[in-house]
């Protein structure tokens, strides 16, 4: 008996291996048998599972690539094993699939991928309603989500996705025009799915999952969309498509009748997708980090071999040549490994696109968004950390920068505003620009406000640049009215802080009446830092190069000691405080005489100071490493790095080094 069960499941599994090439027939037959037998034995879960797998295979042309389905089959196999082993309790447990964290996690990841592409495609569709490819792709995505949700018995998600799919199907068949109203509702549905994903994820991480948000209202709104049909001549779109031929679901199954869309023409198969599409593999970040660690070690090992005096003593051209080749390859491997952390900045831009669309309609300021350089690669962490500041700046541009359409026409501009997002590479950095063609920053108003708040003294006349930078002061806002979009004066300071955290810089260029450009200059990756290696006593420290202004050996006449104020040094007619690194870090230096040491002029948070060290060792690109648990918040230390000889050097956090000085 058990052999029989296993044979049937194997025949379904074979179908998965063969994929599309095979006909679904034998598998469907096997599943039908399993369902029937399980029904007779009273193994509800198995019969339900088999029913769902069968349905999924019948309705999705890409079933064999769906990871969740393959896992579902495993689940079925295990349930059958348990049941035939006499332990039917496991198989009878209700809704077991939804309890399986692995399955649910796969579902969340897969759905999120789909949601991202849904949003992008919807925005494309919003600009060009006659884009069939985008429409097909949205349809496919909702269809897959629906299938998976049904499979895992997430009923609210399945119900919503089903309704949206029905609407999209009408649109595909030219029975419904894609109006902004349709796009709004579909976007809203995507938002609902996003929320549900967050809820499910919270449930996975142990939090009380809570109930699914009510979906009825949204479903009703989606359903109501097909009423105002714009193409009247076509056959009645209200008539639901015929239900597909399908054996009855077991009576115990809570599933509603088969999805209506199953009768629709099958979605465009994968083969029809855009040619040249890149395939990608999802990799655990831990594995990736491990690879990077190992590659770093390989580079060190390689350089140790190269510098080995015994090998150098051989004076063999062949060895030299081979070693050169080795180092070339190693560098290439390192570069490639680093590039794996990178992703195109386009994903970030698409989120902004959604925001511009929503806001421009909400504020009644028609705006177009131009994007360029979406394919520019940047560290994944930066993309994630940059999302909020970008959103904030764009929100500001729309709210404060761009005038109402009437004012724009009066000023001789186009009624439609233009916002541009650009990303470019620039000498080891990435430059992201956010440009609007609005009214520009109001120099005088900012200055007046700053004087009022005492940020600028009465007699001072700061440069334009200094004035623009005032908008990054905490609590600074020139908005006449506080709206729910912006104007509360929180935000731009957060933007600057966030960008600084990413070791980036932000600049503003503005011209009255013409518009404003925000320029974000960011490092390509957070994993690597350009550092100046300095020595103090037996220890070596790494000073981030971006903070270093200059380095020199001080002369005695530059130095002065102010009582109670500590040491100062006169550098280019500016009196700068001196921080002795050996004293901060309690190490024994080679010299305590300032005139015998070296000074690094460093800037942090707009303040400059001289850092006193024993020696300069060199400039080096280093991979930043965490010092590990319990060593995360050490003042003055940002992390560790493995130096050329394999030893660890500490990366300085200048803010911490200097901040302590202020306390001392």
């Amino acid at each position, binding site marked *: 008996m058990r052999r029989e069960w296993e044979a049937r499941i194997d025949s379904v599994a074979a179908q998965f291996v063969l994929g599309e090439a095979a006909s679904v027939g034998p598998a469907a037959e096997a599943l039908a048998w399993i369902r029937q037998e399980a029904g007779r034995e009273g193994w509800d879960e198995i019969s339900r599972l088999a029913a769902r797998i069968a349905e999924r295979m019948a309705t999705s042309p890409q079933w064999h690539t769906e990871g969740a389905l393959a896992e579902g089959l495993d689940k079925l196999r295990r349930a059958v094993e348990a049941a035939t082993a006499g332990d039917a309790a496991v198989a009878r447990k209700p809704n077991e699939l939804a309890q399986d964290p692995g399955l649910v996690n796969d579902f969340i990841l897969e759905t999120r991928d789909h949601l991202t592409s849904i949003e992008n495609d919807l925005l494309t569709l919003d600009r060009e309603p006659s884009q069939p490819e985008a429409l097909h792709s949205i349809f496919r995505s909702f269809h897959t989500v629906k299938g998976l949700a049904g499979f895992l018995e997430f009923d609210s998600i399945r119900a919503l996705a089903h309704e949206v799919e029905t609407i999209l199907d009408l649109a595909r068949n030219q029975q419904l025009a894609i109006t902004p109203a349709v796009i709004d509702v579909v976007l809203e549905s995507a938002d609902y799915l996003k929320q549900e994903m967050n809820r499910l994820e919270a449930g996975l991480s142990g939090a009380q999952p809570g109930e699914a948000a009510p979906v009825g209202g949204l479903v009703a709104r989606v359903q109501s969309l097909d009423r105002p049909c714009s193409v009247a001549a076509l056959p009645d779109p209200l008539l639901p498509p015929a239900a597909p031929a399908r054996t009855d679901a077991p009576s115990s199954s809570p599933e509603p009748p088969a999805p209506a869309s199953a009768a629709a023409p099958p979605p465009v198969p994968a083969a029809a997708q855009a040619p040249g599409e890149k395939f990608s593999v999802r990799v655990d970040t831990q594995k990736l980090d491990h690879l*990077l*660690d*190992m590659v*770093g*070690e390989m580079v060190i090992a390689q350089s140790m071999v190269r510098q080995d005096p015994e090998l150098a003593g051989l004076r063999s051209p062949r060895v030299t040549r081979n070693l050169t080749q080795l180092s070339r390859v190693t560098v290439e491997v390192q570069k490639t490994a680093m590039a794996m952390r990178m992703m195109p900045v386009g994903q970030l831009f698409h989120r902004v696109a959604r925001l511009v669309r929503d806001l421009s309609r909400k504020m009644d300021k028609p705006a177009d968004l131009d994007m360029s350089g979406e394919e520019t690669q940047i560290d994944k962490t930066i993309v994630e950390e940059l999302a909020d500041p970008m959103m904030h700046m764009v929100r500001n541009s729309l709210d404060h920068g761009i005038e109402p359409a009437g004012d724009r026409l009066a000023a001789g501009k186009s009624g439609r505003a233009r916002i541009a997002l650009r990303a470019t590479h620039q000498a080891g950095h990435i430059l992201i620009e956010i440009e609007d063609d609005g009214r520009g920053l109001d120099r005088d108003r900012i200055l007046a406000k700053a004087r009022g708040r005492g940020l600028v003294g009465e007699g001072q006349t700061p440069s334009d640049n200094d004035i623009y930078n005032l908008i990054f002061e905490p609590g600074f806002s020139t908005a006449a009215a506080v709206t729910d979009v912006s104007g509360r004066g929180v935000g731009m300071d957060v933007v600057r802080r966030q960008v600084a955290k990413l070791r980036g810089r932000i600049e503003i260029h503005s011209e009255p009446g013409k518009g404003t450009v925000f320029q974000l200059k960011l490092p390509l990756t957070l994993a690597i830092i350009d550092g100046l290696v300095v020595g103090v006593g037996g*220890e070596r420290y790494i000073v981030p190069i971006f903070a270093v202004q200059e380095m020199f050996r001080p002369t005695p006449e530059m130095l002065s000691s102010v009582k109670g104020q500590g040491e100062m040094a006169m550098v280019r007619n500016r009196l700068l405080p001196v921080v002795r690194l050996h004293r*901060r*870090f*309690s*190490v024994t230096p080679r010299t305590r005489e300032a005139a015998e040491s070296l000074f690094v002029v460093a800037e942090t948070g707009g303040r400059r100071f001289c850092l006193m060290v024993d020696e300069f060792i060199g400039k080096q690109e280093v991979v930043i*490493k*965490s*010092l*590990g*648990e*319990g*060593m995360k918040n*050490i*003042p*003055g*230390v940002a992390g*560790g790095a*493995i130096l050329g000889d*394999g*030893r*660890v*050097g*500490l990366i300085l956090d200048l803010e911490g080094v200097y901040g302590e000085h202020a306390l001392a």
Partner: protein
Amino acid sequence: MTATVSDNKAAAGQAADHRSGKYLAFHLGNEEFGIQVMKVREIMGVQDITAVPHTPRHTKGVINLRGKVIPVIDLRLKFGLEEAPYTQRTCIIVVQVKGDHAPTLQMGIVVDGVSEVLNLTAADVEDTPDFGTGVETRGLLGMAKLKGKVKILLDIDHVLTAHDLSTLQAALR
């Protein structure tokens, strides 16, 4: 208080079976210790340790363990024993411990020397004697008597993640 102590004892009695197995024996001064071999990742000679400022005295600093930066703890200092100069025999034992926040983390512990791997049966292990109130014994799994010598079995997870072990030294004497 009494209740807790006897609870601990009961729990320790049950744990006796879990305490059998292989232990790595090492010494600090004249005292012999054992940690579960399962927890040990590797043993290495003392190498250059990069000092990290503003850390407790027993934190010697960090080292590069094949591309990962891991902290190194001097177990002598952690237990409040006298500091000893590092010799040829001094070792760093890399252990994998359960942290408060991270699921697992690697740390190095500096010991005077590693002697052998012990195979202990449940009969070899005795519960930690009651040292009276104020003596922290949670870092100890028990005591092993072998060939007339007592080896102190450490619960390394607890030893390395507990913040204050100053009371443990009383137990060690």
